[in-house]
């Protein structure tokens, strides 16, 4: 038994040291940082208690960003998962041009979001962008997608859905292949309609994958901000700003590290709560081997 302990310690130590140094310790440090002021040249950092949190409560940008992130999560999570499932169902069996279809769905995974964002900027350009040319073609009036506060957030949301659905498809595809062929054959003999088969057999069997992907999509909803750097910089007037981008801006453009730490604490709390919630949900609904 003791030998096991020693072995375990040796096997775990390197991973745990790194894990603690780059996840737990910085998380704790961030909480501490959020209680101090930002040092500025001549003025050193001083303990300010909850002043940064009071500022947070009064910060309209913070409220805007949180609201945006909620919408962003509420749209990207279900949409990416639903599309991923559709894609997987499309390409799992025999279909004309299966290789092409798989490649098409998978392209976003190999094109870095930061590079693709420039392409999307072009698609969304009012007047002469790709979508605009299509809209004009069917006789619709032009729209300034990214430059209008009512549509900018949806513009970046669409890009995120595009970027992650194809990646999620792979997981569904793998899960679908484990569904026994015998089940389908039996269903076919009984003349079971496709949709009924999907609802009664496929969907329940895919539940673990769906939950796994929903966790992933949730994290991504807070982490995927690359395209904001290129497409909108969070504008116009924070209409498309998201929490992580706001943290970056506060920490690395305004150099207000204390306030950035405060915002990070909020992010960590949200993720922990969501994580615990999903963990329990998964524990109840899914039976791992």
């Amino acid at each position, binding site marked *: 038994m003791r030998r096991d302990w020693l072995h375990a310690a040796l096997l775990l130590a390197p991973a745990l040291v790194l894990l603690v140094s780059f996840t737990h310790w910085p998380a704790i440090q961030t909480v501490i940082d959020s209680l101090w002021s930002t040092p*500025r*040249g*001549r*003025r050193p950092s001083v303990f300010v208690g909850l002043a940064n949190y009071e500022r947070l409560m009064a910060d309209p940008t913070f409220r805007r960003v949180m609201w945006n992130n909620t919408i962003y999560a509420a749209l990207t999570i279900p949409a990416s998962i639903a599309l991923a499932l559709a894609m997987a169902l499309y390409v799992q069996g025999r279909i004309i041009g299966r290789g092409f279809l798989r490649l098409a769905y998978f392209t976003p995974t190999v094109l870095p979001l930061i590079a693709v964002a420039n392409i999307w*900027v*072009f698609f969304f*350009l*009012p*007047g*002469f962008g790709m979508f605009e040319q299509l809209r*004009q073609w069917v*006789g619709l*009036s*032009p729209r*300034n997608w*990214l*430059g*209008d*506060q009512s549509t900018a957030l949806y513009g970046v949301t669409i890009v995120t859905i595009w970027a992650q659905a194809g990646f999620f498809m792979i997981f569904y595809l793998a899960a679908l292949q484990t569904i026994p062929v015998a089940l389908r054959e039996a269903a076919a003999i009984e003349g079971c309609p496709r949709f009924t088969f999907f609802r009664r057999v496929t969907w329940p069997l895919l539940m673990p994958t769906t939950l796994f992907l929903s966790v992933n999509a949730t994290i991504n909803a807070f982490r995927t901000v690359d395209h904001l750097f290129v497409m*909108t*910089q969070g*504008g*116009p*007037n*924070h*209409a498309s700003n998201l929490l992580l981008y706001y943290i970056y*801006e506060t920490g*690395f*453009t*305004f*150099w*207000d590290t204390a306030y950035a730490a405060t915002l990070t604490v909020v992010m960590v709390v949200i993720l922990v709560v969501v994580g615990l919630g999903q963990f329990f949900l998964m524990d109840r609904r899914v039976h791992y081997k």
Partner: protein
Amino acid sequence: MFDRLRLTATTCALALGLATAAQAAELEFYFPVAVGGDAAGIIQRMTDAYMAQTPGVTINAIYTGSYADTTTRAITAARGGNAPQLAILLSVDMFALIDEEIILPWDQFIPEAEREAFLGGFYPSFMRNSQTGGQTWGIPFQRSTPVMYCNREAFAAAGLDPNTPPATWDEMVEMGKTLTLRDASGNVTQWGVRIPSSGFPSWLFTGLVASNGQDGLANDAGTEVYFNTPEVIGALDYLVSLANEHGVMEPGILDWGATPRAFLDGQTAIAWTTTGNLTNIRSNATFDFGLAMLPANVRRGAPTGGGNFYLFDGSSPEQLQAAVDFARWATEPAQAAQWSIDTGYVAPRADTWETDLMRTYAEEVPGALVARDQLEFAVPELSTFQGPQITKIINDNIAAAIVGEKTPAQAMADAQASADAILAAYR
């Protein structure tokens, strides 16, 4: 404290080393590429040429991305104790760099006898963002000013004189109306004017503010901003009215990066953008175009912009002197003229415009002179302590007014209040 000790130690070590070795200095030089074209290659050729004629000096020119990226890099490197010796950063970053205590004034490194001739040779409008508190913190180099690009063919097609660009705000609206073309279903195929409002909205906006009679948006000490004056609100009213009231500009936020393309593709007949785009537009335009000063309202006006050389603290005296010498060489007429021609930046010294190279260029590209002549009316770009944050505040509020979330008066009142809250600490 510890850094000071270490610095002293290295300085001593270096001084000792210098006693024996020949004078050798290795410099790190961060530079951004703010305009298209091969500015990175041009800088490289420039440093290579300097190293070839100055034995013992090695300049390691590091291309660090956009202005914002370069500033971030320089500040993080300086905080980490390995600052570059020299960097080209936005002139408006001066206060932020002073506040961080990472840059040095240039004056002490220039012999007193030469100081007046060297520093006094730059256009005064450029020096306003380079000096504060009686000291010179930046040497103008990669400087620009916004100008109006006019599509002459579109002017002619609309029945306007292609050689008479709008000179006043009212003319710009009137001509804009003539230049705005619609197809059968009422969709616009060509807009009259494009003043981009992403990227650097406050910069172009300062042009409107100046022509409405206000000398910039901040005081020279960088501690006060003047956002809610009648001049500023009037300028914002005008900007908003271009799209909403007069219908000569596309509504919503207009992308800065797509502006040259929009002009080249005939999406807009007039575009406001930096002189730094001149080379790019000149080599890609399939039509005849002209440059003009920004239109006047109560007076002419435009902001200056672009980058200065900054000298960083934390290096040996020999390195600093070598960095100063290089910056002085780079701004000499011969080098500055070539740089200006290659990139489209405005040569920052009057003597540069006297060179044969520059004269020939001005004859070939008369538009190039527009930028120089506009300097007479130039005001400083918004530059304050906590600059990025203050700039962001006014940018956000300009955007809010453009998209109709706030009235111009409300937007500027909000901007003033938010900026005052931040700047209070510096007064």
